[in-house]
């Protein structure tokens, strides 16, 4: 569980936490109390904007939060100490995410008139009446965040008779003592520098110093939650329904996942003892044709088992990825593990697109099995996320425009990315969106082939694209800068813009949309090309030319992967981004015809 502190810490910089404290007390009767104390001083305008309104989430029927202190102490004399206005409402973002689960609530603390240098003091007491699904306690406390921390303290009071697991990444050593039946552990930390949060970086809360405690190890959590979440054996009516669905496909895990993905609309509903956590029975999901990840995963597991495939529900969290210790509240997503003829596949029926599942690369997951499973890290292979661009191009007589017949095909992460983008664009607007995504000029005519919402069907882009060709008079001809990946794949170029900015090192990189960009462009010119530019071959980039005087071929590729690169791959990615942005590798000297 990550409380207010984490919500506040990991949004953006510009404040100092003078004090950052938490107390977690587990009673012998398993009553859980979480007390959080914060003293925050915004140091910039964006800090003021961030901390003027704070959200404290809670779940009605599961936990309750008392706001014991929410006070603004002004730095300027003459201004009074004020108390925050508190508003309770449904958690923001639910409606936009299609979640009709009004039990997810939040308190909004509004500190009117907050100025730079003011101090806000917040103390909250969360009483956890019952943990969702099973009494599996976990808590994460961070000694570091995106803001400066002057001091932090985490105190734990835990019944000696209760099992306790502790995992820590850096941070101070705890003081551990026992008095009576209670074990007291305290972590005290001094000043901590902020950790910079940048796009395409490993999330701060994966790298920050922290301690995680839990009442069970991962294997026990897997075993316990299996009992709550596994769909079990369907009744005969449901079995017949599932069987008819299985028969409508070839019965493969991928086909069944695609069926669930295409027939179930993403919309949440409150059901069961733990609204927001309890999955719908498969029959109900089929009847409503609506559900969220847990409902779709449970339905898919039931379908797979009906098809004779061994299958389990799997819990995960996308960002930050799971730590080694987890509990009832650690997860935000459910997927499916299927074992078919000895091969294990990981299926996400609620994913936005049905491509290669790049969103699951390197994800840490907990399969729910009767024997209990460890946390696993899914594979993060490279080379599967292909964006393949084929172009037959003609340089205009004036040499300043390239007209190309273009075909683009996708696989893996590239397919996920483009399916997701195209699903959000109305069909009539797709040609314009594609023109911009492929950096082409107005007057281009690109369109989608295939339906982005149907993961079983192929998806590609075809049409005509126009590109400006920068020209420079040179001797008895012109130098023409032929468009390459930098101009044509705007997704990759956006990555370049972000990764090449203000970065001193290449560590802690996270590539959310891995790509293997491949461009092969055949170019006809009306003139003569006396020689071709030299080729380049590096670990993550290749550019080469071949051909004759009037017909040449440019081949360019860049590997912007894996999702979680180590230092060597990260350096390779940065180098590839620089090289693909260098126009000199794509300049043709053309003799003869007169340019404008």
């Amino acid at each position, binding site marked *: 569980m990550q409380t207010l502190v984490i919500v506040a810490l990991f949004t953006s910089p510009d404040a100092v936490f003078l004090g950052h404290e938490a107390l977690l007390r587990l009673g012998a009767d398993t009553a859980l109390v979480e007390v959080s104390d914060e003293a925050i001083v915004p140091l910039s305008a964006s800090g003021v904007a961030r901390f003027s309104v704070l959200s404290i989430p809670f779940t009605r029927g599961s936990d309750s939060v008392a706001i014991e202190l929410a006070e603004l102490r002004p730095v300027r004399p003459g201004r009074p100490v004020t108390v925050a206005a508190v508003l309770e409402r449904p958690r923001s973002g639910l409606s936009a995410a299609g979640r009709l689960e009004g039990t997810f609530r939040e308190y909004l603390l509004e500190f009117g*008139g907050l100025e730079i240098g003011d101090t806000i003091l917040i103390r909250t007491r969360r009483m956890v009446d019952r943990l969702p699904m099973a009494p599996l306690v976990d808590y994460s406390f961070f000694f570091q965040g995106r803001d400066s921390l002057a001091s932090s303290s985490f105190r734990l009071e835990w019944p000696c008779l209760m099992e306790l697991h502790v995992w820590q990444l850096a941070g101070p050593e705890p003081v551990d003592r026992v008095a009576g039946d209670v074990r007291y552990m305290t972590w005290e930390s001094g000043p901590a520098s902020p950790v910079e949060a940048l796009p395409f970086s490993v999330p701060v809360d994966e790298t920050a110093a922290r301690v995680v405690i839990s009442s069970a190890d991962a294997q026990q959590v897997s075993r316990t939650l299996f009992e709550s979440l596994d769909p079990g054996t369907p009744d005969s009516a449901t079995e017949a329904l599932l069987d008819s669905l299985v028969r409508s496909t070839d019965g493969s895990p991928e086909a069944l996942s695609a069926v669930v993905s295409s027939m179930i609309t993403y919309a949440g509903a409150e059901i069961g003892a733990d609204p927001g956590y309890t999955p719908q029975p498969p029959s109900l999901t089929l009847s409503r044709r609506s559900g969220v990840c847990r409902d779709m995963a449970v339905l898919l597991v039931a379908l797979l088992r009906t098809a004779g495939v061994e299958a389990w529900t799997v819990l995960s969290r996308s960002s930050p990825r799971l730590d080694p210790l987890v509990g009832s509240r650690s997860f935000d997503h459910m997927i499916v593990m299927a074992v078919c003829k000895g091969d294990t596949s990981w299926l996400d029926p609620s994913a936005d697109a049905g491509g290669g599942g790049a969103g699951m690369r390197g994800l840490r997951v907990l399969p729910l099995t009767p024997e209990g499973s460890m946390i696993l890290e899914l594979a993060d292979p490279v080379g599967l996320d292909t964006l393949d661009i084929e172009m037959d191009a003609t340089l205009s007589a004036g040499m300043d425009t390239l007209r190309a017949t273009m075909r683009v095909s996708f696989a893996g992460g590239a397919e996920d990315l483009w399916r997701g983008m195209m699903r959000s664009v109305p069909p009539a607007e797709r040609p314009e969106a594609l023109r911009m995504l492929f950096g082409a000029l107005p007057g281009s005519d690109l369109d989608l082939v295939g339906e982005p919402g149907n993961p079983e069907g192929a998806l590609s882009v075809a049409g005509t694209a126009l590109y400006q060709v920068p020209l420079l008079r040179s001797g008895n001809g012109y130098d023409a800068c032929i468009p390459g990946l930098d101009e044509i794949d705007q997704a990759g170029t956006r990555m370049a813009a972000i990764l090449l900015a203000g970065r001193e090192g290449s560590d802690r990189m996270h590539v959310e949309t891995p790509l293997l960009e491949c461009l092969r462009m055949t170019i006809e010119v009306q003139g003569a090309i006396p020689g071709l530019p030299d080729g380049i071959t590096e670990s993550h980039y290749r550019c080469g030319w071949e051909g004759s005087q009037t017909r040449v071929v440019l081949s360019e590729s860049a590997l912007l992967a894996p999702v979680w690169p180590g230092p060597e791959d990260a350096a390779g990615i940065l180098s590839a981004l620089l090289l693909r942005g260098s126009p000199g590798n794509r300049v043709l000297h053309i003799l003869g015809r007169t340019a404008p």
Partner: protein
Amino acid sequence: MKTAALGLLALLFASGAGSGEASECSIIIERGEHSLLVRTYLKALSPGTYSFGFDPSCESLELLSADFVRPGRGEEELPDWAVDTLTGTDGYPLALMIVFPPGSAGSMSLVREMFDRLSLESPSLEISPPVADADMAVLVRDAPSSLRWEGGGYVAERDGDDLLLNGAGPAGQLALSWIEGWDDLYEALSAEADSALLTTASLSSREAAIEAGAAGADPSAQLARLRTMLCNSFRIYLPSAAGLRFEVGPLDEVYLRRRATPLEASTIFCSICRQLGMQSDFVFASGGNWTIPVASSWGRVLLRVTAGGRTFYVEPSATLVPAFYIQSSREVSVLGRGDQILRSLPESGSSSSSCSESWEVGTSGAFRMEVEASGGYDVEIRKKLAGLGDAGLAILVSTWLWRSGYTLEVDSVWTSDLYDLGESASFGAVGALPQLAGGYLLLPSLSWNTPSDGHFIRTWKMPSTTRTPQDLTSSALDGFALFSDTLPRPPRRMARMEDIP
């Protein structure tokens, strides 16, 4: 769910307004003593999620009924799980959410009751079809003959005291107004601000006036300082519910919560001006095209300030906009006290826009870029860069260059104080161009949102051996070549430094 008024709503289409195939929407509007009531009935909807935002502080929204039909089955009432009230989007605190399951069509009726001052005293409404292709039928109960309406494609007919407006799908927006003239609209919009100004000036107003007038600043400097103080002290928000946009609380309370609507911000500005001995009037601005008085389209609130024999226009709620610059000044309509509607600000109403963007690129590929701007260009800089840390600035400038067509390594960025609205915005960056293979480079430039007025100049200072396209103006400067253009959105141009192999 209630069933009241359903029969009445259904009657509208039973009388022939609907086509039967297209989505249908009928609306009944009743002006009561305590509220303005809008009943909506929607039929033949596509499956999907429908969201209706509302602000409980000035209106209520209730779902009276929701039914759906699935192929092969009869009409079913929508189950409870498919309806909830959640946090709103588009600025509304709350939203009523309704989900029609896939494969179904449905109908729903809901009632919105508005009890804000404007809805009661001077109502006007903008009505958009809730479904894009819907046939619309709008019935106004007890419509006075002075009721004005406007909407392309609508046809009006009288039925006793009622007015029925029919629009065949896809129907457009419809406006209704019980407000008789522009003077009446002005009075309705400014009434609460005027009465807030009648109360004794708060201590905060006097303190602000003293601070703005410190060190004998002239009126222009005082107003610029005031603009900066207010923008940096208040969070400006525009309530989605139109009725709240023209309500003004006691100024002391607004000072305390530091959150203000455009009208509240202008009222505070006005009260401080009075402390400084300056005369100021509210001027409302609208980007809409209604030719009848519709309050909700007049959300921008300017002030006309007279001081030292000069007239200034300021927009106190325009955050990160230069002190005397009025955005889109040539496109908006304005309405001042005693004025009829004016289709643009007077010539003196807004300062002009200019931008100077200069680049220096060396043979190593290292670059230094500097920009100085005013007016609309200044706004673009402030809105993009204000409040970012070092890394954020570098990423922002880098992505700005990407959108302009260039991939560069941006190492660091500096800016002027972008929160000081009295000084022109400027910023600069240093970094490197990608490898200059063969000495070739694309001449870097930023692409700008061009304001309707203004002057632009861009220069590149390069080694004297550099060749560029001939459309650039060139000159020699201290052993370097200086190239320039005047295009805010230039084409990509290639250059070559001859002394690089």
